[in-house]
């Protein structure tokens, strides 16, 4: 217990790289080197991880505020390793595709690295309080990244995102304080392990108020309908690497928190508010889905599509069974990787053409075949084609959710009934979402990469250098895990505590 956790290394490498950059090291090479070291180190950790053992490994703990039971506790189990893997891969890809801006490149890379260390810290924390604190580390870098190096109406986007995120995280903080205070006085703790022990021994009463605070707080951070409006705007205006980190990794924080903290501790409250949550997540899938179809620009479309896909993961959480939550964890990873590639490619297109308007683009695949091929891969993965992780995830979520709740079919109380329960209705609506995402993704692909090539785009360069390597890396990960999702399932399932 007393030894230092190797996870601390993962958190500190980006921070030190950021400091070095601010002091005077070469921004681009330092950040690529730092993120690559982090990824390799994480892979080494995965090798040393003992999947047979239950509970957290690599644990180290350091009391910070003893009388409130706050301690800086790091640890990882299968699910957190999956999320840490996502964070490090996307960080590496993000700094690789980042192009040094003209003004202040040091702050640009340092901000990206700070976001990265924030998400790594959040996923490596066992203590709920530090889980929250690390997430907030990303707030100021995000504000700076969108506000300084963004495009379009960047100032409005940065303000909106910051105010939403600050409000959401403060509501979340109140929820976390509530979670702490509903525990019995003698055993109060912010340590997730102790909270779960308390919950399992029946010491934590049902607390709908606390649950609503947590749902609202996490919901705003994950862009749950109707609190989603900050997200598409922010992602559309942010520079590509910032959108990759934010949409790909940071936003997963909220869902990870719901699956990790709320599901095992307040299952009764979750059950009680399932109808509300189902309505909201269908809003995410159908309403935002149709809004996505209506978009005329690639960046906005991707922003809305990332909001829409959160609906599936919420469905996995709401169904609250082993199958659906495993699917949700898979989708956390798959969506993170997919949206990161899509935003990276979106940034590449913007850099080449200066526009993302569908009406001005066309036929680019002819001249940039690698760009077109990778976009095709990522678009298919986003729709949920078999062969990518997303397919396995969606399938598990749908199966899990459809089988949840009381069946309303067959002979009940001597009467023959034929109907669907709430979960089944929601799942049916959600399956329709796949059609929606196929529509907008395929249409975007056709508009940008197919058709006649306008004269002015006839000299565009194809993907090359570090950005090509980064995109190939992420797509390769998507494909490998898509064919062998069992690796992820084996890692994540023991970590999921299903009530």
């Amino acid at each position, binding site marked *: 217990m007393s030894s230092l956790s190797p996870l601390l290394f993962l958190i500190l490498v980006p921070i030190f790289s950021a400091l070095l950059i601010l002091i005077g090291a070469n921004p681009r090479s330092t950040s690529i080197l730092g993120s690559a070291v982090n990824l390799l180190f994480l892979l080494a950790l995965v090798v040393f991880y003992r999947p047979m053992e239950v509970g957290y490994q690599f644990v180290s703990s350091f*009391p*910070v*505020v*003893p*009388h*409130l039971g706050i301690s800086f506790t790091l640890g990882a189990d299968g699910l957190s390793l999956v999320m840490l893997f996502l964070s490090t891969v996307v960080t590496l890809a993000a700094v690789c595709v980042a192009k040094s801006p003209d*003004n*202040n490149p040091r*702050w640009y890379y340092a901000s990206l690295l700070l976001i990265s260390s924030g998400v790594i810290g959040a996923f490596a924390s066992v203590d709920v309080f530090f889980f*929250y*604190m*690390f997430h*907030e*580390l990303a*707030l*100021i870098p995000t*504000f*700076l990244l969108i*506000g*300084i190096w963004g495009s379009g109406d960047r*100032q409005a986007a*940065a*303000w909106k995102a*910051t*105010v939403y995120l*600050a*409000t959401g995280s*403060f*509501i979340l*903080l*109140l929820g976390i*304080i*509530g979670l*702490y*205070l509903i525990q019995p006085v003698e055993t109060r703790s912010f340590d997730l392990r102790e909270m779960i022990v308390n919950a399992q021994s029946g010491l934590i009463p049902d607390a709908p108020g606390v649950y609503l605070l947590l749902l609202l707080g996490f919901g705003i951070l994950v862009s749950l309908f109707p609190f989603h409006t900050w997200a598409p705007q922010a992602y559309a205006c942010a520079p590509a690497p910032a959108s990759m980190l934010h949409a790909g990794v940071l936003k997963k924080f909220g869902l990870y928190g719901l699956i990790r903290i709320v599901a095992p501790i307040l299952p009764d409250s979750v059950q009680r508010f399932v109808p509300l949550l189902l309505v909201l997540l269908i809003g995410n899938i159908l309403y935002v889905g149709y809004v996505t179809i209506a978009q005329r620009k690639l960046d906005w479309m991707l922003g809305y599509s990332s909001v829409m896909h959160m609906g599936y993961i919420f469905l996995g959480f709401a169904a609250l069974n082993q199958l659906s939550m495993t699917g949700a964890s898979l989708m956390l990873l798959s969506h993170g990787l997919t949206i990161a590639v899509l935003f990276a490619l979106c940034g590449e297109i913007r850099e080449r053409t200066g526009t993302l308007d569908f009406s001005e683009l066309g036929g680019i695949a002819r001249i940039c075949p690698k760009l077109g091929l990778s976009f095709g891969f990522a678009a298919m993965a986003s729709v949920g084609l078999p062969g990518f992780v997303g397919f396995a995830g969606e399938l598990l979520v749908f199966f899990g959710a459809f089988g949840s709740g009381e069946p309303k079919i067959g002979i009940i109380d001597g009467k023959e009934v034929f109907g669907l329960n709430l979960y089944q209705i929601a799942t049916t609506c959600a399956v329709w979402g796949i059609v929606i995402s196929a529509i907008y993704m395929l249409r975007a692909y056709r508009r940008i990469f197919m058709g006649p090539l306008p004269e002015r785009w006839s000299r565009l360069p194809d993907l090359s250098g570090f950005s090509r390597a980064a995109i190939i890396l992420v797509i390769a990960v998507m494909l490998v895990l898509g064919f062998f999702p069992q690796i992820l399932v084996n890692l994540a399932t023991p970590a999921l505590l299903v009530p």
Partner: protein
Amino acid sequence: MISPIVLEVCVVCLGIFLLMAESFSVKSNKVVLAHGAIFGLLSVFVMSFFIEANPAQMQSSGFYVVDGLSLFFKRFALLSTIITLILAVDYLPIVQRLVPSAKPGAGTGEFFVLPVFTCAGLMWMASAADFIVIFCALELVTISLYVQVAYMRRSLASLEAGTKFLILGALSTGFFVYGITWIFGMTGQTGLAEIQRNLTINTEANQMAILFGLGMVLVALGFKIAAAPFQFWVPDVYQGAPTPITAYLAVASKAAGFLILIRVLEPFFTVVAFQPKLILVLALLSGLTLIYGNLAAIPQTNFKRLLGYSSIAHAGYLLAGLAAIGDAFAGRAVVFYLCGYFLMTFLAFLVLIPVTKATGGDDIAHFNGLGRRSPTLALAMLIAAASLAGVPFTVGFFGKFFIFESIINQHFYGLALIGIVTVASGFYYYFKVIRAMYWMPPAEDAAPVTISRLSKSAMLICAILIVVLGCYPQLLMRILP
């Protein structure tokens, strides 16, 4: 071991000595005075660790207490005076321009000496346990502050600020004395300990009158800590006063007000009949102050004025902590918040003064492009603004967290909800400064920003403490009374 009263005596002697030195020395360099004052106060600060805690002859006196809380606030006052003097040294060129004098540099010596007397008053106040002593110490502080606020005689804003502060300050003093007389009339005592004893044997009929007296005292203290609805003087006075004095008002004067509030309310909290009423009043004041301070700060464009509203807002959080005093931990949460407030407010002012000197103004627009002109200053301001807003890994976050933990534990859900709105608006107006520094291009004609070595080291210490305490608050928690 040194008798505790020696500390105040030393500070007063230091002030008199500096005044003499100013009058009789031929040297016109007044900065030496400031350095002397800083050195003298630092020595007193060191001395404060060697004094005898709670000596027997003091216990029986009944008007002067030496407990952990008072020692803590004495050190708080000393340190804030030292930083104010560091600020004042930086600010000297502006003062010299705005003070009429026969020859250049004359008439600025008192600018460094007056804070020393204020400091003595603050230290007396920390130990005062009798309404008469509280009143005298309070007047020593306030009267010397009147002079300091109106110090720049050629600046209309400073004169206006001085007049407003004088009139409203005198009014609040009137309320204070009036309140004391009612309490004295009902309990026959001015010492807080005796009042507490008499309160317990008081008849029910007298309670109304005592509450009335206490209400008057609360009004007066509300002026001092800038709680709504007694906050009207704050924006104008903060904007008009010389910047170091604004910082002094914002930190030391407010902290002293809270200390007095804690001391005065203590005996009344022990009476069961008063407790719910007092808590209700404090919670109402806190809610009003939070809403007013945060919402009115949103449209501000002047940075000093913004800090004025922000100081009202912080008073609201502190009052919320006092309202939750039933929680065993709330008292320490309030003191922790005050310390965090000390660090981040002074850091903001330490950055403001070089910026004012370089650009000639203290609007938020004068911070434009600071990120490129002076990256270190901008980083310091970034840390200060983040901490004021309550971003994690800064001391401001833990301050808010502890306060909110206490108030939720005491079931003040309404205050917690107000807190959501106010924290969100806080993010907005503090981030306006960050936006100006990093998003906006610098003005064409801006002079280069220079920082003196003294204020650079003060800045460094503040910034490091903000971050360190934001990661490991226990460091400070352990030594809190």
